């Protein structure tokens, strides 16, 4: 039996198919302007017998495709527990949300915090800043140069103002590598503040697209003096969690969660 999990994020749609509870397929595509169409294309490529959707756009599939959904918070917790069974704290930085999640030893979510309403401290913010500095977002973390960066700080809580701050620093002739470091540090400090609210237990796992940024990982490691685990495909874990959930779905409300036949014709 093939079981699918699809994570409709603000920047990318991720799709995982399980066979015998092991992921056999992982696709990732730009969300674009018609996420429903992208979902259909992905699902057509490898049709599952059961499917659960998660992520910001999950309701699209719920409404148009009668697909059951779980929040990305629960999904990423399930996915993380699968790949790192000892995980108790999750840092998830995606396109438009930053989440920190505390789980118990059974992998159940016990607490979580999310960034407030703006994009500062999220992947989108990194993308905008990388562009402003003329770097590629994929290699942005490698451009950070710690030496002498302590004197430069990005204080603004808002993407728009933070960008003005960056432009101000560029105008002062500050090297872009130093500015890049300051930007990363500002994101990290915000995430650390969220983590302090929920309390940190080992092991910590870093997920979402931004977990590919090794500099951020390093800042967290220095802060908590512990290893931060990152999966090879850190952006896959919510989709993986959704798929695992689809396969196991048993809950006190199980009748609500048994996925019906998938009908993706709009």
């Amino acid at each position, binding site marked *: 039996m093939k079981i699918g999990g699809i994570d409709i994020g603000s920047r990318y749609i991720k799709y995982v198919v399980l066979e015998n509870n092991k992921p056999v397929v992982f696709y990732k595509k730009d969300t674009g302007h018609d996420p429903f169409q992208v979902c259909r294309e992905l699902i057509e490529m490898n049709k599952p017998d059961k499917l659960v959707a998660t992520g*910001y756009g999950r*309701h699209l599939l719920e409404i148009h495709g009668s697909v059951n959904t779980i929040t990305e*918070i629960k999904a990423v917790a399930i996915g993380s527990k699968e790949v790192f069974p000892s995980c108790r704290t999750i840092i998830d930085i995606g396109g438009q949300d930053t989440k920190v999640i505390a*789980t118990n030893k059974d992998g159940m979510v016990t607490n979580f915090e999310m960034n407030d309403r703006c994009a500062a401290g999220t992947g989108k913010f990194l993308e905008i800043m990388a562009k402003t500095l003329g770097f590629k977002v994929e290699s942005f973390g490698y451009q950070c140069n710690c030496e002498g960066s302590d004197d430069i700080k990005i204080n603004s809580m808002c993407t728009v103002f933070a960008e003005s701050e960056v432009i101000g620093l560029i105008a002062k002739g500050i090297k872009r590598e130093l500015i890049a470091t300051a930007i990363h540090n500002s994101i990290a400090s915000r995430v650390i503040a969220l983590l302090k609210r929920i309390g940190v237990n080992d092991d910590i796992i870093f997920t979402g697209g931004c977990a590919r940024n090794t500099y951020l990982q390093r800042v967290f490691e220095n802060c908590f003096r512990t290893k931060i685990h990152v999966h090879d495909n850190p952006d896959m874990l919510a989709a993986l969690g959704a798929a695992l959930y689809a396969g196991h779905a048993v809950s006190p409300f199980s009748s609500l969660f048994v996925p019906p036949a998938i009908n993706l014709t709009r």
Partner: protein
Amino acid sequence: MQKDYTSLWERLGLNLENHAGLLGVLSDAYKNIYQSQRGRPKGMEYFDFVISEIHGLRVEEIFEAKKEKRKVVGTFCLYVPEEIVLAVDGVCIGLCAGAEVGADEAEKFIPRNTCALIKAFMGFKLAGLCPYVELTDLLVGETTCDGKKKAYEIFNEITKKVYVMEIPNKKGEDGKILWRNEVRRFAEKLEELTGKKIDLEKLKASSKIVNDKRKALQRLSFLRSNDPAPISGLDALLVNQVSFYDDPIRFTTKVNKLCDELNARVKAGIGVAEKGSPRVLISGSPMAIPNWKVHAIVEGSGAMVVGEESCVGEKNFGTLLDEDFSSLEEGMQKIADRYMTINCACFTPNDERLLNIIDLAKRLKVDGIIHYAIQFCTPYLIEAFKVKKVAETMAIPFLRIETDYSMEDIGQLKTRIGAFLEIIEKGVIA
């Protein structure tokens, strides 16, 4: 077919074009959020009607009342004693607004980072969209939060009819004395405004009217303790919102009628959700009409809101007035003291609010507490920390939400509330 009130609105000086737009948006939102609910009690038909006539029939009634020389008093806070307004034959109308309207107009006078509630009551007036504020003879402000008390100064420059009551910061004896004096001065102000003297008989009669309203709302609150809940949180919230501007006697009759129906539902084991659905208590900033955002998301995600620890909710009716007084002075004092039991976050300390939350959580058998604060509502935003601790002691899952009247964070709120309900359901597979 609804009556045409255009000429009335024109006489009140409303901006007719924008006003028509507002009513259109409101009626669409109401249809989507309210009329899509299943299993609604028949008694809600009255409240549907009130909403459909939100700026119509009631406005006309008050307009007629004014012709009979009755004065209209607009308020923004539970602390303004309705008994006294009614004792001079006044009409008491709550003017807090729960929609993002006229914000750009309001921002000409107050900073952008002012809470949505203040912005809205300024905005509604400045954009010419609130018939009630135009009908008022007196606007009563109060020294609760800093935002409101400073905004009233500006609001007075705009309307020239603001009277401010001083609410103490602490609940001790000094505070009580200050408040008793303030209540007395307010009564004098109203006597001066109306040219009518308050006597014992009138005060007793008006006290009964307001207490009866509180009793009806208490009854509704108690009925919500049942599982399955006989009424949705959205509908109960609406009833509470309407309590601020409907005629109090008629309102009480309609709420009691609704409660009779709910009582029958409870006896028959009928509810609006399945038995065992997660039950949520909302605590925090007031939700003025038409602010239905959080309730709609919670109930759209499969849980039930069973109580509001809020001004638009328990704080409004939780304590009754001791009607057993035999002199005017004693009555005034009892009224003042009754209002001092409202546990607003503007007081320090405010531990009674926490005790009330504990009681409510037990009585309503809640599975989770959502603390709701309007962005920039500092008193509630900060007090959330203490509510969280209370929830932890009771081992009840807790979620803190900070939002405003706009719709742009709906997606994020759905995720937060959804994940919170997942924690309550403990549906995570090990």
